[in-house]
């Protein structure tokens, strides 16, 4: 099916040109969704997210008769690859993937290849609560406009967590981190790029170390890549011999660092979820002496999205699910550190008092920073930087030359 046909189908289903939601159209979506099974391909490496997704499934089953199957991925690209394979094989309807937890390079690749359902996000009834003005990241995914092809459901910002019992005064800049690592060999590491959190660490370090961070908003091949990134490689060259396992092995994912922190293998770790440490304290994985901090120059923030492949079997069910994810009920539950500890994408001022009370009642946890302490999030670089940095990293450090 050509993209134009997809558009036609989408318009037919939604009965709208895409921007204004009419309750009658949404009722049609809801009735089409009833009885559908939605296969949500979402990373399955953390029990907290798995439990949250299971709860979402229970809710939409009860309220909308939509059955949710969580397809647990170890890598979001698995789902992207699936859709690519289906398109290559001409399977333009009845695809295996109905909804993907996605952002950044995966979104850019799918959007570029025309693999996503177009212009559906702003037709969701709960879209009216989303903080579009205050959180630019909900419509600009790593600088790529979302164009209504993916719906935000959680905010993330880089924080570092540390065990205050072992490390009273953590370093609060990349430069200071380098000195600290040299003085404390083997006590710091970061997930191995191309893991997204590891790549995020590279971007975070690059923003502080490079001369002009605004260049990162342009594609990596539009600037003098070698000159812009040279300070990063210098820093890494000096830091690696002092890292965990002398930089010869790295944790493969972000959550792996929780276990390493609990085991006392490292004293400091990066996270993309301001509430992750509090959530881990609540479930016993980390000791209650763990705290979080952000760097002096600020840290990168972005949003997590859900998108629907162009050939999804149950697009209406997927929309109902995306809409539920934007509900105050789901958003406040996701923000509860006992559950997930993810930041909300909603605008508190747009909510009814009763809904707002759900958020006010939350105890964000002992290790979670207040919005003021977190500060304004720095924008993500263009998605090409993630790929370029990960490739350069692998070439320099990932092949043991």
């Amino acid at each position, binding site marked *: 099916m050509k993209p134009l046909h997809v558009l036609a189908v989408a318009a037919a289903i939604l009965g709208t040109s895409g921007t204004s939601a009419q309750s009658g159209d949404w009722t049609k979506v809801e009735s089409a969704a009833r009885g559908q099974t939605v296969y949500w391909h979402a990373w399955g490496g953390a029990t907290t997210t798995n439990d949250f997704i299971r709860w979402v499934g229970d809710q939409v089953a009860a309220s909308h008769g939509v059955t949710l199957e969580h397809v647990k991925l170890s890598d979001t690209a698995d789902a992207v690859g699936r859709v690519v394979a289906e398109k290559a094989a001409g399977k333009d309807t009845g695809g295996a993937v109905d909804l993907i937890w996605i952002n950044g390079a995966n979104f850019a690749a799918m959007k570029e*290849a025309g693999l996503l359902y177009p212009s559906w996000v702003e037709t969701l009834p709960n879209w009216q609560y989303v903080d579009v003005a205050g959180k630019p990241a909900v419509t600009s995914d790593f600088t790529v406009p979302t164009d209504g092809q993916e719906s935000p459901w959680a905010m993330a910002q880089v924080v570092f967590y540390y065990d205050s019992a072992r490390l009273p005064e953590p370093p609060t800049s990349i430069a200071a981190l380098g000195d600290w690592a040299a003085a404390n060999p083997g006590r710091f590491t970061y997930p191995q790029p191309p893991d997204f959190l590891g790549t995020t660490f590279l971007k975070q370090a690059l923003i502080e170390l490079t001369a002009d961070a605004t260049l990162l908003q342009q594609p990596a091949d539009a600037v003098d890549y070698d000159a812009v990134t040279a300070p990063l490689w210098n820093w890494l060259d000096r830091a690696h011999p002092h890292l965990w*396992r002398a930089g010869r092995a790295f944790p*493969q994912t972000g959550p792996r660092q929780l276990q390493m922190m609990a*085991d006392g293998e490292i004293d400091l770790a990066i996270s993309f979820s301001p509430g992750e440490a509090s959530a881990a304290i609540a479930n016993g994985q980390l000791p209650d002496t763990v705290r979080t901090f952000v760097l002096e120059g600020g840290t990168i923030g972005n949003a997590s999205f859900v998108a629907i492949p162009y050939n999804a079997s149950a697009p209406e069910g997927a929309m109902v699910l995306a809409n539920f994810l934007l509900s105050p009920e789901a958003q406040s539950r996701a923000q509860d550190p006992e559950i997930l500890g993810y930041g909300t994408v909603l605008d508190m001022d747009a909510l009814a008092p009763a809904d707002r009370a759900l958020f006010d009642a939350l105890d964000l946890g002992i290790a979670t920073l207040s919005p003021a302490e977190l500060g304004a999030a720095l924008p993500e670089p263009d998605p090409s930087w993630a790929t370029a940095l990960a490739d350069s990293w692998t070439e320099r450090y990932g092949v043991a030359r």
Partner: protein
Amino acid sequence: MTRRLIPILVLGLLAGPVLAGVLGTLLPALGVTGQPGAFTALLNWPGLPRAAGLSLGTGLAATALSLALTALILAGWSGRRGFGVIERLISPLLSVPHAAAALGLAFLIAPSGWIMRLLSPWATGLDTPPNWLILNDPYGLALTLGLVVKEVPFLLLMSIAALPQTQPRRSALVAATLGYGAATGWLKTVWPRLYPQIRLPVYAVLAYGMSTVDMAIILGPSTPPTLAVEVVRWMNAPDLSGRNVAAAGAVAQLLLVLLALALWRLAEMLGARLMASWTASGTRGHRASRVISLAGLGATGLVAGAIGLGLLVLGLWSVTRRWHFPDALPAEWSLRSWHSQTSTIAGLTSQTMLIAAVSATLAVILVLASLETHRTHPPNPRLRPFARLLSYLPLIIPQVAFLPGLQWGMLQAGLSTGTLAVIAAHLVFVVPYVYLSLSAPYHAWDSRHACVAASLGASDRRIFWRLRLPMLLAPVLTAAAVGLAVSVGQYLPTLVIGGGRVQTLTTEAVALASGGDRRVIGVFALVQTGLVALGFALAIAAPRLLWLNRAGMRHGQ
């Protein structure tokens, strides 16, 4: 006769998907689908020499070590009284899936693992884990150890099945009469006749060791990883051109396995010469025999200890709330990991069991049908080696080399990718293992029973149902349990062919392994193991219960 077609059908079922899959992998790799340069991109990857070397090194080392330990155990103990214990250990050891064994081993040997916790701080003086590169080491030593621990029980099982055909008792008697030490005599007289019988399983071990993905992710190095793991990464790369590089990598993996097999074949010839001159030297080797027995005991201890303690530590973690280094035991216990996963476990267990039970049952029926047809209608003897090789193809061709192509081909053919497709894909791997464990006892069955029955007027069919099958019940059920274990352990076929929609305990365990929460990993690894162990327990218990009143049927005549 349509029955003559059964073995051909089975062979087609095994080799067909493999060959079609390799073709489906080759086409994009060669640029036939319109994107050239896949091999250039592969060759430009700076990690290629090291990744290829790692695959080759860990595969060859693990196979050689596994075979050596198997030989030591057999030489030192087969036919002796202690061997019963070793035989009884094999099934439980085999029943631990690869991923679970790897995770258990990782929890054991990591610098923050259980061994260091037990020794700290009183013996090591350490309050924090040492910064040692034991796990995920760049030389793949941990991966090699993990492979050895998993493959020795498999090779032992295959050897014990093949042993009766080499008449070890008589050889041992002759060797002892001539004054040879027990183990030396065994190595000189039985081993040279046993090895050809287990040659194909050894090749399968070699191919598996070089191309395993789940074990290499858990235990292997990451800077760079082995070639198979890197191929899976390319398959998953967000920039979509990575898929063609993956295809090229898969072809490279295939060539690498063929190279390793050729090297192994050379080593076999060299080994045969060395054996021959050692045998001709006539050394009686009494002291060597004692050393071999002790080494065999050590090998058994290493394998059983690594898997047993690994399972124990997985179990401990599954009921842990807090367990900090260097405490020897958890500081706070909790059943929370089990409680919170109950519904997931129930769903995954029934899915896993369905796939495993159906594929194991189908495999046993197919293998029995083809063995029985071979007996009643012997095939052309010149075709036999060819047929044997074809039936081993799924075990010798690396999974990453043909599964992506197979998935592509199935999509082209418009086949659905649900549970049925996964069962069909599992069957490709289950049938060869069922054949491996069933063919030796099947052929070893004393055909004089059949002669007597036939002379009393029984038809072939009646002989099969009333005589052969009941007498072979124990090996048939064991083969079914092996099939079950193989199916439960499949990671890549489930993931790739199921399109992610079909989830089993194994895909869940490997997905969780990336997250690293040991408490939940422990739960899934244990449930996965328990399911397979249940299969073996039933296979052992059922014949004993059925033949409670027939003493002669209880020891596998």
